């Protein structure tokens, strides 16, 4: 009995000591599936379609793209539901390999919370939605109102700043998730619901009567969304960073899931290098040579992903034109570094 416990204890400490060697990339390849943390209650980003039972959304497609690039199969993703509260812990404790959960990229999250962020995959802004009957025209009219947001979101800090800047002393309520937040707005407990404008648009569009709600025009803070991985594993982070860039680069080059096979027949050495038919991009990152091809073929380039989840055919529809989410050549902020 005593010996067993001793042996167990020894194993625990040995395992703790030796585990430092293997990085996330090796673990993922060995496991054969990607554990990807996403929300499942955010339409357009990470949402479980309860009729089809499939995960859908921009963040979800980024998970699939990573799986396609690293493992060669976009379906080899194990979606783990993370909340605003649990997402950082989930990555730090190694429970998920990467999180794409509409998370705002800001300095404190890389320095104090210690996770490493990937490139921005959606530019959003924090805004407010109120009921039409309240007769409020802008955020400036909300002095004294009950302001509500979700727990653990960057909006919590943004609201504190808003109050301080204006010298207001509003009540700030935080709910566990968007569903409860919207419920509180609906019931009148909250006068204004604060979160990212994309989510506000989604909830308004899908409500029984969209005319009952107004999304206020102001943005109190910009809110760039990015995935993130555990800190200090640059092999894994760099591989994922360039997979994200590849989706944007593919759109810049006009390579889509439909024409990627055809493009592989092209003569242009730079294109072939980008797609992995030549060169050593994949090998240098420690992932398959054709990672860009697989990601684009199985999931699509950034534009395709955007259209599928947030485009005009969706119920959410967030116009890409004129926003930072457009490619930089169209006046937006989406741009990939040089692939050479």
């Amino acid at each position, binding site marked *: 009995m005593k010996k067993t416990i001793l042996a167990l204890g020894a194993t*625990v400490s040995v*395992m*703790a000591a*030796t*585990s430092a060697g293997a990085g996330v990339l090796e*673990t993922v390849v060995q496991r054969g599936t990607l*554990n990807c943390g996403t929300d*499942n*209650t955010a*339409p357009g980003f990470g*949402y*479980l379609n*309860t*009729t089809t*039972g499939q*995960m859908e959304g921009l963040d979800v497609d980024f998970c699939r793209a990573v799986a396609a690039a690293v493992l060669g199969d976009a379906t080899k993703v*194990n*979606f*783990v*539901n*993370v*909340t605003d509260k*649990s997402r950082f*812990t*989930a990555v730090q*404790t*190694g*429970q998920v390999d990467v999180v794409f959960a509409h998370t705002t990229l800001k300095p404190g999250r890389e320095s104090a919370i210690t996770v490493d962020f990937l490139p921005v995959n959606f530019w959003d802004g924090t805004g407010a939605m109120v009921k039409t009957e309240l007769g409020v025209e802008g955020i400036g009219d909300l002095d004294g109102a009950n302001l509500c947001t979700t727990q653990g979101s960057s909006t919590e800090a943004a609201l504190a700043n808003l109050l301080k800047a204006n010298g207001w002393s509003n009540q700030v309520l935080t709910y*566990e*998730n*968007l*569903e*409860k937040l*919207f*419920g509180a707005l*609906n019931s009148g407990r909250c006068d204004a619901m604060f979160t990212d404008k994309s989510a506000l648009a*989604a*909830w308004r*569009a*899908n*409500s*029984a009567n969209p005319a009952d709600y107004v999304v206020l025009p102001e943005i109190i803070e910009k809110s760039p969304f990015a995935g993130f991985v555990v800190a200090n594993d640059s092999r894994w982070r760099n591989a994922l960073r360039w997979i994200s860039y590849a989706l944007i680069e593919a759109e810049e080059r006009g390579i889509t899931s439909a024409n990627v096979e055809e493009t592989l027949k092209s003569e242009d050495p730079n294109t072939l290098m980008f797609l992995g038919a030549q060169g050593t991009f994949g090998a240098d990152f420690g992932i398959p040579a054709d990672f860009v091809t697989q990601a684009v073929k199985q999931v699509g380039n950034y534009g395709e992903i955007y259209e599928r989840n947030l485009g005009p055919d969706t*119920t959410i529809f967030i116009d890409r034109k004129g926003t930072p989410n457009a490619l930089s050549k169209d006046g937006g902020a989406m741009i990939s570094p040089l692939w050479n």
Partner: protein
Amino acid sequence: MSPMQKKIRWLHVNLFAKPADALLTLVVVPLLLWAVWAFLSWALTAADWSVVFNSLKVLMTGTFPSSKLWLVWIVAGMIAALAGLATSASIPFGRTAAVIAVLCYLVLVLAIFGAAHIAPQALLVLAAFHAAWLIGLRVPVLRENLAPIAFGTLIAVLVILSPVGPSNWGGLLLSILITLTAALLTIPLGILLAFGRQSKIASLRALCTGYIEVMRSVPLILVVFCIWVAFPLVLPKFPIPDVVRGLIGFTLFYSAYAAEFIRSGLQSVAKGQTEAAESLGLSDFDLKRIVILPQALRVAVPGLVGNILDIFNYAPLVFIIGLTDFLRAGQMILANPENSARTYEIYVFMFLTYFVVGSIITFQARRLEQKLNKGVRK
């Protein structure tokens, strides 16, 4: 006395015995009727139950892949059979014919209301329940070895479901799996802790007492969250799925409660028993195993069944570690803005399901208690 007079007499004694009683009755009856009427008129006209039927799969199994749903049906049949066997340990078959009729009727209603495609499977599960009930009554060996059978069933269930991966378990299935696993695992742990708390070795006693008291002093939600955070830090080499970590949290927490029920059982075993067994020359281990434990468990059974109900009722707390149990599945459906107007339908359905399952467990606990009390009249 004519039947009519009997009825009037009943009314008089039970409802109008005193002026105060009469007043109470006159106030409560209309209120009650109004409440029932309001609920029924909403449920039958205003409510749109299609949202429940359309998302039945998510409510029951969460993100379980649709192509492998047949696994869930097999598991449901096995769990139903286990429940039937447990029922046979406390309730004879004859009297409850009415209950069966109601259950079958419910399935029928389900079928009519647009869930027709699952009616055959549901009927088979029901049949498994009744068959096991009947067999348990005929074959006493089976119902007397309920604990080993339950362990066997649990292992089989976990093996059957394992190819799908624990992260895909959800809905009512997950709630039931948590309840079943935690309830069974807490018993051996509880026995060890209870004996440890009564041990002659002071330090062991202090450790067990400390563990039990600490677990009983902190909220479950905190224990579950703490285990979820701490495990990957302690065992970085072995990524343990969320579900398993949640189960560990529940088991660690509720084994403290199980230990207390078992300890009260241990204390109820008469001192003379120990002395008699010692005089027979039994070793300490045999004494505990053969003489004391069976008697102690007998006393502890109603408490342990109550523990099962507690585990089931607190299973929704796994929302804190991102699992999708029954309650969370319902909230997830409501998270789709298209369904946001259907809040009441979803909640009423969930309330009723919880109430039915909870009532069945309570009912069985009560029956078991009565039956055991009959055996040991003082």
